[in-house]
């Protein structure tokens, strides 16, 4: 109950942002929502199930290109977005069967390599995807800058809320419980009756579907995509960092981490442009060394110490 209330509150707070009339702020907020979707999705496979997936870039790019290619054949935008999510889901379910039996490092590498292979496939099919030249997306009719800023903000916000809503449901469900068992002791989970293969595939698919739609929305938002852009390895690593930042395996950790990371990025981009990669690296290192359980755990500790009677 508490979780739904928090989600509603945050959702509402964000929903009134356009009233400020600040397009730049809106753009930042749209990116925060997109980051939140990526982080929340990663949390299903990486946080709950404990399988360190680097496939987020693959799903994002796949969704972006699916939607863009469909729209180049005059499929309506919203339908293309939905199709992108579906394709990402099916792709994950299929690939999952092949790589989810790998553990640890091998799984991580395999998931990382998938994006590379997809990128190369796009590069070598220029007739369909524009290849290295990229692909343009059609503009919406009668749109203005202000309208688009609001439209895509609400689209990403809705996606973010949806992803978090699904997270709330999953965390409290049999699936979530089973995934946590798998993460802590996969052998014991199997013996206790958990269908680990099905559960892992479900988590992996969940980690793909919203990311795929986000890729599609992003593509429509920026009107032009190219392979290094939507298959960027950073898209695979940043969700991880966000989740680590906010608190792995929690419900609100991922979106919190998304907000924080974007705040850091904005600060750094403005002040340290040439070294912004290094600063991101520094943040990551500091995080891993000093705060592996994320900020949410710090907050919890404080609350416990403050609230609990001695």
């Amino acid at each position, binding site marked *: 109950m508490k979780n739904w209330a928090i989600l509603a509150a945050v959702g509402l707070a964000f929903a009134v942002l356009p009233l400020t009339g600040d397009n730049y702020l809106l753009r930042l907020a749209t990116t925060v929502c997109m980051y939140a979707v990526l982080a929340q999705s990663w949390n299903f496979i990486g946080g709950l199930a404990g399988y360190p997936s680097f496939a987020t870039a693959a799903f994002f790019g796949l969704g972006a290109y699916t939607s863009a290619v469909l729209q180049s054949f005059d499929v309506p935008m919203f339908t293309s977005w939905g199709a992108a999510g579906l394709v990402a889901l099916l792709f994950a379910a299929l690939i999952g069967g092949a790589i989810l039996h790998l553990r640890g490092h091998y799984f991580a590498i395999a998931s990382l390599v998938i994006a590379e292979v997809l990128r190369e496939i796009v590069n070598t099919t220029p007739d369909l995807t524009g290849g290295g030249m990229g692909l343009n997306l059609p503009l919406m009719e009668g749109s203005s800058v202000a309208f688009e800023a609001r439209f895509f903000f609400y689209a990403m916000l809705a996606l973010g809320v949806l992803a978090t809503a699904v997270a709330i449901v999953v965390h409290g469900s*049999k699936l979530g*419980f089973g995934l946590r068992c798998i993460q802590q*002791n996969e052998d*014991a989970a199997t013996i206790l*009756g958990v*269908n680990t293969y099905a559960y892992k595939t479900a988590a992996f698919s969940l980690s793909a579907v919203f990311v795929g739609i986000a890729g599609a929305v992003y593509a429509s938002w920026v009107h032009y995509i190219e392979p290094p852009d939507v298959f960027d390895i950073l898209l695979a690593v940043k969700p991880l960092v966000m989740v680590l930042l906010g608190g792995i395996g929690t419900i609100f950790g991922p979106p919190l981490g998304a907000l924080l990371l974007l705040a850091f990025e904005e600060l750094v981009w403005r002040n340290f442009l040439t070294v912004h990669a290094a600063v991101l690296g520094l943040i990551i290192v500091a995080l891993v060394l000093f705060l592996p359980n994320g900020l949410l755990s710090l907050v919890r500790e404080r609350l416990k110490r403050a609230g609990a009677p001695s």
Partner: protein
Amino acid sequence: MSLLVLDNATRRFGGLNAVDGVTFSVEPGEVVGLIGPNGAGKTTMINMITGVHPATSGRIQFDGRDITRMRPHQIAKLGLARTFQIVQPFPKMSVVENVAAGALFAGGETSLKDAHAAALEHLRFTGLADVADRPAAALTLAQRKRLELAKGLAMNPRLLMLDEVNAGLNASEVDDALGMIRRIAERGVTIVLVEHLMKVVLAISKRIIVLHHGQLIAQGDPREVLRDRTVIEAYLGPKYAAAYSGGAA
């Protein structure tokens, strides 16, 4: 109808038959002891029956169904549970959550709430009710062994295979465990007990099976089996077997 039937079951690893052509059956309601020297293949046999390392040849039937090729989680749902020799809890979860997992995924409970309630019952039965909310990693060894037992019970098994539940326990802890196992058997659960402690085996088993180098070398009444020359030879070698075998088959 026998509850568990092994028919010439073999499990091969590389060039070695860890379980070699074993044939036996377990009747409902029995308590069967499974003994044998170290490396005889007892744990491998349990892994084979539960589908962790499926049989390379032969057949295994449980409750009339062929489970030879089934996956572990499917076998668990049919009512076959086992405990691990080296305990395997979910360390970060609480004790009650650990047991609830068993109730939810194999024990037939449909909601998390019901599983939780069922778990508390099993914790009371195994005497762990007062540590229900502590993380599993914080328990003592004896408590962890009982947690293994509680998890197995939560699965509502028809057949429960206990792999060295008493390893590492002191004498009074062993007595407690013995009492618990008896009470489980009284509830109608069929038990297969892998044990090194002869006192436990003799106290509770109606029948024993002896494994040596993966093969079944003897089975039958506990006292007779323990006087069997081949069994003594397996444990102590031919010299002692000659000295001890007072006339048994």
